C-alpha cells in the first residue's frame, strides 16, 4: 500500500508517495534523482549508501521511508555546496580513491567526524578514523589514502 511521506532533503521539502517500507536510498536515487548516494548492497553491510538523518550517519538502504518521514536528510550533493567540505577537498588533494564508488558514503560519514573534531579543536588519530570507517568497504584498496585525507581534513590542512 502506497502512503505519502514528507522529507526535508538538503533543505528542500519533498512529498513522496510510496510503500512505507521502501528504503530511503531508492527514494533519493529514483524519485528525487539524487544519484550521488550509491547502492552497494542494500543490506546495511557496505556503507556506500550513507546519508545524514538529522545530522547522524545512517545507511539509507535499510532506512525505510516510514522511519525517515518528517526528518531532515543530507546527501553527498549537499556537502559540496556552496563550498566543498574539507573532507572532499582533502580526498581530492590526496587522490584518495580509484574507482571512487565507495567515496560518497565515506565522505558523508567522515564529514561528521571532521566537523566534530573541528568543534572540539583536535586532530583525529589514525585509529579513530579507521574505527569509524571500518563498516565502509573499499575494494580498490584506497584505505590508507582515505585515512590520511580525513586526518588532514580534521587538522585543517586541506
Amino acid at each position: 500500500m502506497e502512503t505519502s511521506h514528507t522529507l526535508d532533503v538538503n533543505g528542500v521539502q519533498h512529498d513522496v508517495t510510496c510503500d512505507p517500507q521502501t528504503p530511503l536510498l531508492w527514494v533519493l536515487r529514483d524519485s528525487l534523482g539524487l544519484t550521488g548516494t550509491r547502492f552497494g548492497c542494500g543490506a546495511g553491510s557496505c556503507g556506500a549508501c550513507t546519508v545524514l538523518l538529522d545530522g547522524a550517519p545512517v545507511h539509507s538502504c535499510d532506512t525505510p521511508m516510514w522511519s525517515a518521514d518528517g526528518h531532515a536528510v543530507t546527501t553527498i550533493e549537499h556537502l559540496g555546496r556552496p563550498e566543498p567540505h574539507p573532507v572532499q577537498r582533502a580526498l581530492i588533494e590526496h587522490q584518495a580513491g580509484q574507482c571512487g564508488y565507495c567515496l560518497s558514503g565515506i565522505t558523508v560519514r567522515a564529514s561528521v567526524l571532521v566537523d566534530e573534531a573541528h568543534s572540539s579543536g583536535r586532530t583525529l588519530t589514525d585509529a579513530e578514523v579507521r574505527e569509524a570507517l571500518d563498516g565502509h568497504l573499499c575494494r580498490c584498496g584506497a584505505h590508507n589514502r582515505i585515512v590520511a585525507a580525513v586526518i588532514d581534513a580534521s587538522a585543517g590542512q586541506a
Partner: protein
Amino acid sequence: MATPSIEANPLISQWIDISATGVVRARTGKSELGQGIATALAQIVADALGVDVSRVQMQAPGTGSGPDEGFTAGSLSVQHSGSALDAAGRAARNLFEVEACRAMGVDEVRLDDGWFIAGERRTSYWELASSVGLDVAFDAGAGGNVGSRAIGTSLPRRDLVDKVLGAPRFLHDLRLPGMLFGRVLRPPYRGAQLGSLEPGAVAALPGVEAVVVDGSFVGVVADTEIHAREALEAARVNATWTGAAPGVTTADVRTFLTEAAAESTPLATRDEDASLADTVGQARLSARYSRPFLAHGSIGPSVAAALHDDAGLRVWTHTQGVYPLRKDIARALDVPVDAVSVEHVEGAGCYGHNGADDVAYDAALLAFAVPGRPVHVTWSREDELGWAPFGPAMVVDIESTCDGDGTITSWTWNGFGNGHSSRPSTLRTPSLLAFASQSAGHAIPPSNDPPMTAGQGTGRNAIPGYEVGAVTAVAHRLTEMPIRASALRSLGAHLNVFAIEQHMDDLAQHAGADPLEYRLRHLVDPRGRAVLERVAEMCDWPTRPTGDAAGRGLGFARYKGTGAWCAVVVDVEAEERIRMQRMWIAVDVGRVVNPDGVVNQIEGGAIQSASWTLLEQVRFADGRVVSDTWEEYPILTFNDVPPIEVSLLDRPDQPWLGAGEASMGPTAAALGNALMDATGIRVRALPLTPESIIAAMELQA
C-alpha cells in the same frame, strides 16, 4: 614495427582528432576501470603532440568511432594503447610540422603548447587543423624525441572530483529521457530450470511495463527502480524451479580440480633423460598449493542500459571490451554486428571479467520488450557475488631438486583448474549469462586460457624467474565448468607466485640460507635483483619484528615474466588470526607515466591480494552460492589495512609497463612466508584463515 593495437587501427585519425578550437580529442579502446588509465593516456598524448595536457580530452571507448583494442586486460593498457597514442601523436606532429613550415615558408619550427614558432611568425595545430588530413597510416616508430613534460608527473586523476562531490558520473547514474528500469530474476541455484511463472500476477503490479519470460530467463521492466524491485520480488515468490544441481561443493573443490577431465598443455619441457640424470639422489621437495574460487566483489554492482529502436540496439556498459561485447550480443541475438552499438560509461572498480557483459545482455533482452524506451538494469549484491564469473579455483603441484649446496637443479610444475577466460566473443558460443537461460540459448562453454604469448592463464607466472635448472610445466585446463570462472586480476599469477615463493623459502630453509640471499643466488635478471635489494633496504632486512607471534615474509615476481618487477615484504602478527603490521613494496614499471597513479595501483593491488589471500573463498553447495552477501564473503576493512610504503625504481629510458597486477602474486607470497616465519606452520591452501592453519598443523603433525 606494429603493435596489435596499431595493426587493428592503422590510421592516425582512428586515435587523434585535432580541432580548430584548440582541443585534442584522443580515442582509446581501453576502458577507465577506476585504474586512472584515461589520465595516464592523456599525459602520453600531450607529450607526443607537444601540447599542454589540459587540451587533451580522452573519449570513452565506443564501437563506431573508437579504435578496436580488444579488452582492457593483462596490464597492457599503457603498453598497447599508450604506445599507439604516442606513435599516432608523434606522426600527427610530424605532419603538422611539415605543414607549418610550408605555410610560413621556413625550414624549421619550434613547438610550444601547440604553437609552431619560427622567429616572429607562428601558427598552430588549431589554425592548420583543416588543412592537415589525419587519415594517414602511421607506425610505432614515428617521430623523434619529444621530451617529457606531462609524462613522469603525478597529474591528478580527472574523474575523482565528480566522484567525491557525488556528481552523476557512473553508469549507475545515467538517466535518459523516457528511461525504464529493469531487473532480472536469477535462478535459485545453478542448473535450475524455470518450472512455472504466472506473468500476469507480476504484470498487474504498479508501474510494471513488461514481464519477459524466455526459457528460464525472467526479467521485469517498470517505470521506476522502486517498482522494478517490487515486481522482481513478486516474480521471485511466484516462480517455481526444477532441474538437478551440479554435485561439486566447496569441500571437494581440490579433488574435483585434479580429477575432472582436462586438456593438458606443456608450457615448458625438458629432455627428461639428459637433464634429470644429474638430479638422481639429490634432495627433492614436492608440495601441493591451492586457492578457492574468488569473487570480484566490486562495491558497485554491475549495471547497464540498452535501447532498441528503428536504428538498432544501443548499449551503455562498463565492459572491458566494447567490440568483443558487441560481437557476442549480436551472436546471441542472431543479428548483424552493425545492428548493435556499444558505448563505455564508467562503472565501479573492475578487476577482471565481472558481471558487466552479462548485465549488458540482460538490458538488451529487456529493451526488446519496450521498443523506443531505454532500459536501465542494475544487479543486486547477491547477483554480483553469486552470479558474476569467479576467479578460477586452482591446484598447483611443484616438485624441485637441489644439490648439496642448496642450488636448485630442476623444477616441475603442474597446474589444474578451469581456464581463466570466458570473455565475450572468445568462446565457441556467446558467454553471456542470460544466453544460457534462453530457450534458444546455449550453456556457456568451459573457459579457455590465453595463449602463452599473451601470458597464459593457469600457467601465468608458472615458470619461476629464478635459475632453477631444467623446467617442466604442464597446464591442465578443465573441460567441464560446473562453477563459471573467468579472468580475475593477475589470473593464475596470484597462486603461482604464492606457490613458487613458498617453495623458495622452504628450499632456503633446507639449505640453511637467508630467504633474500637464497633468491639473489638464483636470480640473474638485474632488474629483479634491484627490486629485491630496494625492498630489503626499505624494511632493513634481515631485521625481524620481535614478539612470539610476529613474523616477516618476502615475495617477488616479474609479472607474466614480461611485465613489471615487484618485491613485497610484510610483517604480521599471527595470533587467533593473521594481522598485517607493515608492508613495503618495491616496483619497477619501466618509464613511469604517472608516479602517483602507479603507487595507487600497486598499493591497491596489494590490499586486494591480501584480502583474497587472508579471507576470501566462494562457498557453494547444491549449485547454490552461499557466499553471496558481504557477511558471508568478508573482505579486508579499514582496521585490517597496515601502513604500506611503495618505492618506484624509475627507468626513464625503458619502455613503460602496466602496474595494475604486479603486486598481486608477491603480496600473497609474502603473507604466506610471514605466517611461516611467525608460527613455523607452512599453509599451502589459501585462504590463510585460522581453519586452514589448523588443517595445516594437523597435516604437519
